[in-house]
């Protein structure tokens, strides 16, 4: 299975697998883009070239590491992509399906290779897919039309030097009714690479560079003159404007007038602009290869200037930074002691100065490590697009997925943990939200349903909104189900606000669809989604309008690794409350606290704020005899619209803390997100505000658990 007998080292193999994973993800993005463009009518040939290059590198790499299944698959995939590139095969939905299948299979091979499995059944799948790929790749399409050049008078000398790919692109441009231009430019011998790149860069927005050829005209010794052939929808003037200042001369190629109108039909044009920034970045980084990918040599140098790091190593660094923070707190205490001694004023000043610069560096270090952990949400969104494509096909519904804010960044761990819940949300939207095509037509909606995902950063949080234009929630049915299952009382149900009714969808066992079909019958409901989001200290909310659609809003913290926390004391215990969920804190006396239906509340700026006491929530005994002090503090906490006030005895200021897990045995204790070490070897529990708010709201304040 490998080169040289004893095989690549474990580390090298891991490196290879993660690189392969990245390439497959890139390939997947290319395919998604193609799919989108195909639906819009015309696609950017560069994207097929990108896909081709991705598979090409995959082939080379996997061959090097002896992962035969992967190299065989890439080899055959490459053939198919080559045929697509050259226009021998047309890009049809079925072909794209095959390509997406290959993505899934690649992922499987990566996973199996990582787990050290040879994956025998996987091998059969590879064989099977290869056979089908080949069938498509070798399919003969209709022969090109008799008069291929659409009336354009093209030099025989030009045609004779075009590669098959270039010729295909030329035909495509003509077919799409674009005009052909010849751009004559002279370049200095020394700087031709840069000059040509610049020219191509300027031409890219107006059209497609089909080829460039050395000019027939005589050139001086120091110069090379090139003719660029450009296919563009744009008028001559626009092309001229694009190259203004480069000294290039633009001319429309001569054309036989009679034939012009006959072939040139206005085709729907997609201006091929790179959709995602990631794509653009990759393009900019990758050394520009000649788009003709026939050269077999594969560069061994990595393309990207990046290092892949095990996230645990970052966790470890984060821990160390946390410990340094504790050491800093200790030093500050020592400084205070020295300050108290008048005779040591000079020493105190110096120490103060040094400490300040240490603090600043430490903060930078912390911010730096946090930044390294951040990855764009696009990583999950790309996976989602693939899933949506598959589910919608299976469900026989046409879905348009629109994504905004894919470059919003979140902690890697959160992004990883998000993919499953988001996938279930998508499934739910397609299965339950968006109606079948007939129903939609009858309702006067476009046949294709739309799911839009928007992500954006708001302060310390990232908000992800998922909206569909489906039928909305059936509120009556939700209530009926919830009452049937005894989740809410009949009386209670009548008094519920609309928001509360809609939020019933997150209760276990409440589903609006009576018959579990093969997809939603997988036993994963919105309650699991909610639990998973809550585990990430996030909150999920629903808003729905009958007949118009449903919107889910996920609010998540940017990172779980290091956070600012408010240190509080209640019933003789110390707790840390993540500051990102603290809205304000205020001092109250017992007189401010009122009781409504046995729930403690207070009014805050004219609004009623439900209160919760940690000692009741957690059943803590008060050790001190005097009991609840008369003066207390209320820490108003909340995420999204839910807010409650935590009644606590003391506030102890803010600290930067590293949240650590309590270990597997205690990982699921409700209301506790983890623990952290404060100065003096003291371990303090960190509250899981989302869960506490949830509990307090759902169970009516104090008497939870």
């Amino acid at each position, binding site marked *: 299975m490998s080169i040289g007998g004893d095989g690549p080292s474990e580390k090298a193999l891991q490196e290879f697998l993660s690189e392969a994973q990245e390439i497959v993800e890139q390939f997947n993005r290319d395919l998604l883009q193609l799919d989108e463009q195909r639906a819009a009518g015309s696609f950017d040939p560069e994207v097929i070239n990108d896909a081709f290059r991705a598979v090409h590198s995959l082939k080379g790499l996997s061959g090097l590491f002896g992962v035969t299944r992967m190299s065989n698959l890439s080899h055959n995939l490459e053939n198919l992509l080559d045929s697509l590139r050259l226009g021998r095969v047309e890009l049809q939905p079925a072909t794209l399906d095959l390509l997406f299948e290959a993505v899934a299979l690649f992922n499987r091979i990566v996973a199996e290779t990582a787990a050290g499995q040879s994956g025998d059944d996987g091998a059969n799948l590879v064989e099977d897919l290869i056979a089908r790929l080949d069938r498509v790749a070798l399919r003969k399409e209709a022969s090109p039309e008799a008069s291929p050049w659409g009336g354009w008078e093209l030099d025989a000398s030009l045609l004779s030097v075009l590669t098959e790919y270039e010729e295909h692109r030329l035909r495509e441009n003509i077919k799409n009714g674009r005009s052909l231009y010849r751009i004559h430019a002279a370049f200095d011998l020394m700087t031709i690479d840069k000059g040509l790149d610049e020219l191509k860069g300027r031409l890219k927005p107006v059209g497609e560079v089909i080829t460039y050829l050395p000019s027939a005209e005589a050139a001086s010794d120091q110069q090379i003159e090139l003719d660029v052939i450009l296919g563009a929808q744009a008028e001559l003037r626009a092309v001229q404007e694009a190259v203004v200042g480069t000294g290039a001369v633009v001319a429309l190629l001569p054309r036989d007038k009679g034939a012009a109108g006959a072939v040139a039909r206005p085709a729907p044009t997609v201006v091929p602009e790179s959709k995602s920034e990631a794509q653009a970045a990759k393009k900019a980084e990758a050394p520009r290869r000649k788009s003709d990918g026939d050269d077999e040599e594969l560069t061994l140098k990595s393309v990207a200037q990046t290092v892949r790091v095990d996230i645990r190593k970052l966790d470890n660094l984060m*821990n160390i930074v*946390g*410990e340094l923070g504790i050491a800093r707190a200790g030093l500050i205490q020592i400084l205070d002691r020295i300050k108290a001694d008048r005779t040591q004023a000079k020493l105190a000043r110096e120490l103060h100065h040094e400490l300040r610069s240490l603090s600043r560096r430490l903060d930078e270090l912390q911010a730096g490590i946090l930044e390294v952990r951040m990855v764009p949400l696009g990583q999950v969104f790309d996976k989602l697009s693939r899933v949506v494509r598959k589910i919608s096909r299976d469900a026989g519904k046409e879905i348009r997925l629109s994504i905004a804010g894919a470059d919003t960044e979140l902690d890697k761990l959160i992004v990883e943990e998000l993919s499953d819940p988001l996938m279930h949300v998508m499934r739910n939207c397609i299965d339950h939200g968006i109606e079948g095509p007939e129903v939609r037509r009858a309702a006067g909606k476009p046949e294709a349903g739309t799911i839009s995902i928007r992500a954006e950063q708001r302060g310390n949080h990232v908000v992800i909104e998922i909206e569909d234009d489906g039928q909305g929630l059936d509120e009556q049915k939700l209530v009926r189900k919830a009452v049937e299952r005894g989740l809410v009382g009949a009386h209670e149900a009548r008094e519920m606000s609309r928001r509360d009714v809609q939020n019933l969808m997150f209760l276990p066992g409440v589903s609006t669809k009576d018959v579990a079909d093969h997809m939603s019958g997988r036993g994963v409901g919105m309650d699991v989604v909610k639990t998973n989001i809550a585990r990430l200290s996030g909150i999920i909310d629903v808003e729905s309008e009958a007949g118009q659609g449903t919107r889910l809003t996920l609010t998540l913290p940017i990172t779980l690794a290091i956070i600012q926390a408010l240190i509080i004391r209640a019933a003789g*215990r110390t707790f840390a409350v993540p500051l990102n969920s603290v809205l304000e804190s205020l001092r109250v006396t017992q007189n401010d606290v009122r009781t409504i239906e046995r729930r403690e509340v207070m009014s805050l700026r004219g609004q009623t704020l439900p209160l919760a006491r940690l000692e009741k*929530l*957690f*059943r*803590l005994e008060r050790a001190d005899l005097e009991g609840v002090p008369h003066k207390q503090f209320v820490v108003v906490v909340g995420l999204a619209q839910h807010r409650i006030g935590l009644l606590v005895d003391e506030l102890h200021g803010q600290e930067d803390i590293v949240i*650590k*897990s*309590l*270990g*597997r*045995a*205690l*990982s*699921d*204790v*409700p*209301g*506790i997100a*983890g*623990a952290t*070490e404060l100065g003096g*070897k*003291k*371990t*303090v*529990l960190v509250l899981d505000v989302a869960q506490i708010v949830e509990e307090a709201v759902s169970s009516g304040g104090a008497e939870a*658990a």
Partner: protein
Amino acid sequence: MKDISFTTEETYLRRHDERRTRERRGILSFAAGNEVYGIEILSIREIIKLREITEVPRAPRFLLGVVTVRGLVMPVVDLRIRLRLDSPPLGRNSRILVVMHKGERFGLLVDDVRGVVRFADNQIEPPPPSLAPSEAPFLAGIGRHPDGDKERMVILLSLDAVLDFAVAAAVRR
């Protein structure tokens, strides 16, 4: 001619195995309640003095809370409550044994650490069937070893059983 036999990998490994079974197992013995228990020394990471334990709400009673040792947070199990023994007040000799179990650290609160004893396999008996059913699952065997003219007994604990609890299920609504 003398028969020279080379050690093959196989025979080497077999000999190594034999040596290991003949070798005595190191057991850390300690007092909990009024009994002497033992845990395989290999699963013990360190022994620390008693320190402040942060109570975790909604956890079972035997789970005293969590401590941080060298930057790692770990749950602490009061072995005396876990084994349903008498709990004498904690004193100067009380210790927390930090054990590694299935890749995670736990603290075990015990009354006193006695030392390491070594047993050959044939010195370890299976647990007697007469034991109370509540205690039986925690026991891995009984080790006897001579100590001067007396014979001492150590009850070997099964860490698997002692640390096999699912708090989540117990406290979830």
